[in-house]
């Protein structure tokens, strides 16, 4: 299967020239943002974008593979903290942040790999998985919350308890430090790569088998697939994607606190994915951007109820569009086009 077919395959919204025309126009508009927005505004947009990889990972895991994780922020936090520790101890080294990023992703993958091994190879199913994943992230929050003392430091870096880890270095490649517009481009390109790579994955044979596992794990196994390995692999992949978001977050704000892996933050990726429609990557991409924009805009205008509004939106969507708003609208459009043809 060629590259083009993997990108435009049927397992995500949008296959025709119209979709790709609009998609390319949107991408071009984002790339042109520095021409008509301030650096501060571009920095804010970076924030709306940076959660997208984590949401895409959850979409793969929950929407395509049928395994709901309520604890993706654990891997977001692990990658962020490990990056902070490594890069913070390598200040002045031109590749310290790159090494920190790789270290952060490796740590997220390792923890997810160990945790996932016990979950999937023990054939834990259904609603036990989200509970276990949530427990892991709450344990992580509890642990990080009690690291305020001076003894909780790694080299030169203080973990900082609920005060958080501060002064985390920005991303840097050799002499080039990413902030402002350059950081915006860095996030934009990474998010695009993550999206297109996920799209290729779901359209490849691996993705079709994930759909089979989602529908009937036992039937899939009885056709000769080791579903434990595939669920585990998808779980680790989702953790790495959450880790990418965690890295971008600490490189964006230069700090992280244990609340980032707490209950409230743990619920947000589930909301983004559910509101857009967990079955399609593109729906999740758009919903994550829109809801982060909404949340940030409401909160920055002093609205105390930003999260209440987001929560209410989730309830409305679950009642009226159980498959998610964007997936429902896309289906409706496709049916209309089919009837017209």
């Amino acid at each position, binding site marked *: 299967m060629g590259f083009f077919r993997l990108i435009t395959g049927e397992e995500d919204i949008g296959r025709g020239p119209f979709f790709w025309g609009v998609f390319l126009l949107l991408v071009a508009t984002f790339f042109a943002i520095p021409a008509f927005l301030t650096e501060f505004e571009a920095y804010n947009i970076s924030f709306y974008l940076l959660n997208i990889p984590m949401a895409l990972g959850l979409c793969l895991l929950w929407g395509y593979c049928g395994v709901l994780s309520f604890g993706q922020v654990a891997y977001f936090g692990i990658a962020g903290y490990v990056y902070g520790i490594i890069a913070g101890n390598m200040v002045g080294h031109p590749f310290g942040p790159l090494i920190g990023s790789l270290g952060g992703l490796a740590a997220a993958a390792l923890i997810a790999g160990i945790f996932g091994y016990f979950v999937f190879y023990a054939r834990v199913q259904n609603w036990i998985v989200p509970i276990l994943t949530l427990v892991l992230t709450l344990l992580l929050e509890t642990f990080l919350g009690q690291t305020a003392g001076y003894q909780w430091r790694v080299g030169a870096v203080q973990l900082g308890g609920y005060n958080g880890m501060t002064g985390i270095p920005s991303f840097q490649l050799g002499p080039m430090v990413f902030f402002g517009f350059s950081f915006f481009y860095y996030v934009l390109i990474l998010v695009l790569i993550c999206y297109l790579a996920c799209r290729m994955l779901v359209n490849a044979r691996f993705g079709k088998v994930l759909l089979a596992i*989602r*529908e009937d794990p*036992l039937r899939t*196994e*009885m*056709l000769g697939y*080791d579903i434990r390995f595939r669920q585990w692999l998808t779980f680790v992949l989702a953790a790495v994607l959450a880790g990418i978001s965690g890295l971008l977050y600490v490189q964006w704000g230069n700090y992280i606190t244990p609340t980032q892996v707490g209950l409230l933050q743990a619920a947000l990726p589930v909301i983004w994915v559910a509101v857009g429609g967990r079955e399609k990557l593109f729906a999740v991409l758009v919903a994550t951007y829109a809801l982060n924009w909404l949340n940030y805009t409401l909160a920055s205008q002093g609205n105390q109820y930003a999260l209440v509004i987001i929560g209410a939106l989730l309830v409305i969507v679950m009642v009226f569009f159980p498959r998610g708003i964007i997936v429902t609208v896309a289906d409706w459009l496709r049916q209309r086009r089919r009837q017209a043809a």
Partner: protein
Amino acid sequence: MTGPTPLLATEHLAKRFGGVIATDDVSVTVEAGDLQCIIGPNGAGKSTLFSLLCGIQHPDAGRILFKGEDITRLPPFARVRKGLGLTFQTNRSFVELDVSQNLAIPMAAMRAARGAEAEERYRYAQDLFGLAEDDPTPVRELAHDRRQWLEMLMVLAGGPELLLLDEPTAGMSPDETSQTAKVLHHLNATGLTIIVVEHDIAFVREVARRVTVLHQGRVFADGALDEIAGRQDVRDIYLGRA
């Protein structure tokens, strides 16, 4: 002198669910090339036996030997890769996917393992069932009998050496049942070993060469079809007299 190794043998297989004994000391042997039916009233332990053979359930005691190898502790997918294939009692084709995707999934898993004979069996069944590999029909739009056939075809796509069919004709019309029997005869004639759990005695008469009767989790009778069909005590269990 010992004879050739049977394709499948169970030794004193036992499984309990709480206080219920589903399978009790079941020792059966299936030779390569057999077409064997397992019959018995509801609750006799037929489907549990299939679950144990496929690794969906693990026995409390006993062993399962496939081609002489102990597979008792192997996970289901590993048994499939060794040559077991199962269709479930309730149809479990992927209804959210279309026919072509349903066929592509087992093909991708097992293509390397599939020999020329298995390929021929698959093509034969495919022609008779009329389900093409590029058929874009969503499975949810297929009639019941075609779903049953699709699931059988999915299993054949994996090129099994032993085909386990759990009530393959449930809900089928007499014509469809006869079509299914025709396919099974052909598959068996080309060397495929088949075990069928079935309630439909007419179908059993049409296909089986050997019959094993299970009753209350135990092997009640085992032998050639004519011999078993003539036994009064077997009839009695079906009528609830034993």
